[in-house]
């Protein structure tokens, strides 16, 4: 069989394949580029950037849990200026498709960041993080309030013609309501899901294992939850979905696409297997050949549900 077509289209966003590197799990690409050819993957979503640099949370920031990990990095990032001056050029030279993830503490900050970055032609799209559980001011609050998500989407949409992806929080009852607001306000796609709120305690010191007290749960442990959220949106809202949560190999990626995802992101697995991205793309090609799928995008929402 001929080489299967891995290209996918999400609203205005076209990608050579559906594999994206999740924001915050590959920094700005420097380190991971030693293991994964960033020109071969669908896109890299850069670490959440904010207007001003953020120092991040004090240690301990991470802890392992059963088939997962908790993190409370606190959106440590270099800030808009350094990001533009130093990080973008590096990624440009690697010929990688850049999607810029923006995290802010106010609607104005979201808008200002988007406006400024819109001029950067190397940035092919924006992922708006309305759902980081680890920053006091904004994050969670926005993420769990449909009208706030609506306003952010609307305001960001107004200042850029580039693809806008809204990254949704899983810590809600009906995520499809949020996806619907995003769609209505002109988002090109939604990323589903960010981390689940979790914590862990040391039973001897009685202190939380991470300094921020609560953190975001990621990894294989959350895959069933992420899949259910993707499926819920796929069955109720007409918007492209980028699935994320616990993907470790190509089988998990296929599972997300079947459940409704047009593309997917890998996060935690990058820490354990920095070659995962390339291996997953190869696995997808093999799967397509085995199942005579000439166009991978046909897999999206191909679930067969009992009546």
């Amino acid at each position, binding site marked *: 069989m001929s080489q299967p077509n891995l290209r996918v289209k999400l609203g205005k966003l076209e990608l050579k394949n559906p594999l994206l590197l999740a924001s915050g799990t590959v920094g700005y690409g420097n*380190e*991971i580029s030693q293991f994964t050819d960033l020109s071969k993957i669908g896109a890299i979503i850069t670490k959440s950037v904010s207007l001003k640099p953020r120092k*991040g949370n004090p240690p301990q920031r*991470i802890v392992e849990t059963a088939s997962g990990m908790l*993190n409370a990095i606190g959106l440590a990032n270099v800030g808009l200026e350094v990001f533009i001056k130093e990080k973008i050029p590096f990624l440009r030279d690697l010929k990688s498709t850049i999607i810029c993830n923006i995290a802010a503490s106010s609607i104005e900050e979201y808008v200002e960041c988007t406006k400024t970055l819109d001029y950067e032609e190397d940035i092919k799209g924006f992922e708006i993080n309305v759902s980081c559980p680890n920053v006091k001011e904004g994050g969670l609050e926005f993420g769990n309030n449909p009208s706030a998500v609506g306003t952010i989407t609307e305001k960001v949409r107004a200042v850029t013609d580039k693809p806008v992806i809204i990254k949704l929080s899983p810590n809600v009852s009906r995520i499809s309501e949020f996806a619907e607001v995003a769609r209505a306000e002109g988002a090109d796609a939604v990323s589903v899901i960010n981390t689940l709120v979790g914590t862990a305690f040391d039973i001897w010191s009685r202190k939380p294992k991470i300094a921020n007290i609560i953190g975001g749960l990621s990894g294989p442990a959350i895959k069933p939850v992420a899949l259910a959220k993707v499926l819920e949106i796929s069955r109720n809202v007409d918007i492209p979905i980028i699935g994320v949560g616990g993907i470790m190999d190509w089988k998990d990626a296929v599972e997300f696409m079947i459940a409704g995802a047009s593309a997917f992101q890998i996060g*935690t697995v*990058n*820490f*354990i297997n920095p070659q995962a991205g390339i291996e997953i793309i190869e696995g997808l090609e093999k799967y397509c050949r085995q199942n005579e799928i000439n166009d991978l995008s046909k897999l999206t929402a191909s679930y067969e549900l009992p009546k």
Partner: protein
Amino acid sequence: MVNEKIIVKSVENLQPNIYLLKAEAPIIASQIKPSQFCNIKVSESYFPLLRRPFSVCDVEGDHIYFMFDVHGVGTKILSEKKSGDILEVLGPLGNGFNLNKKFTRAIILAGGLGVAPFPLLTKSLSDKDIHTFIGARNKGYVVEYGLKNIKAATDDGSYGFHGNVVQLIETEKKNVINDTTIIFACGPTPMLKAVQKFAMENNIEAQISTECAMACGFGICQGCPVHSSEEDKYFLVCKDGPVFTAGEIEL
């Protein structure tokens, strides 16, 4: 930095709970510097999920050694490896000790498993005058593998000096410190704090090799911060460290 598939050759006990793992790892063996580390995938499956960071303890030709105690699930699995088992190992990681300095004498301070990086350091300082001070819980945790000119301390006095390793060096400093001495220290954080204080008071350079929870080990997760003592910012232990000068960081 590579993700090398290394072949376990042997796992032996140095003490009842302390293990020395020997593995064939030509690439890492040829690149590693003292107190750089590796991030080891201890199992083929994703249980446990994260890799485990370990200093390279020693190098012999194409072979590298790791020294560890059984602490939890990951080290338990490592201790049960058999000759022929394959391990995926990411390394060399971080910056090792800085040896491009003018010094004639090296004082090695090791607390507990903090001895791990020193056999390799000792080898690479063959031309220097080395004084090694090791501290351990008790006799059963004292490891002298690959070290030279050793004085030991135990918390319970069951072997050597009764007390910790920093108290021991205090009693010995007259004899061992001169103006071209550098301290190389590795051990638990409380000990490293004491070393910082000791170095300050006696104003000698100290390079301390730190430890903290890590996910990736190579700079992408931002999970391993240690606060700078000069500016209001965090270093990353895995990338900017694990070795820092005593004055550089706030532990």
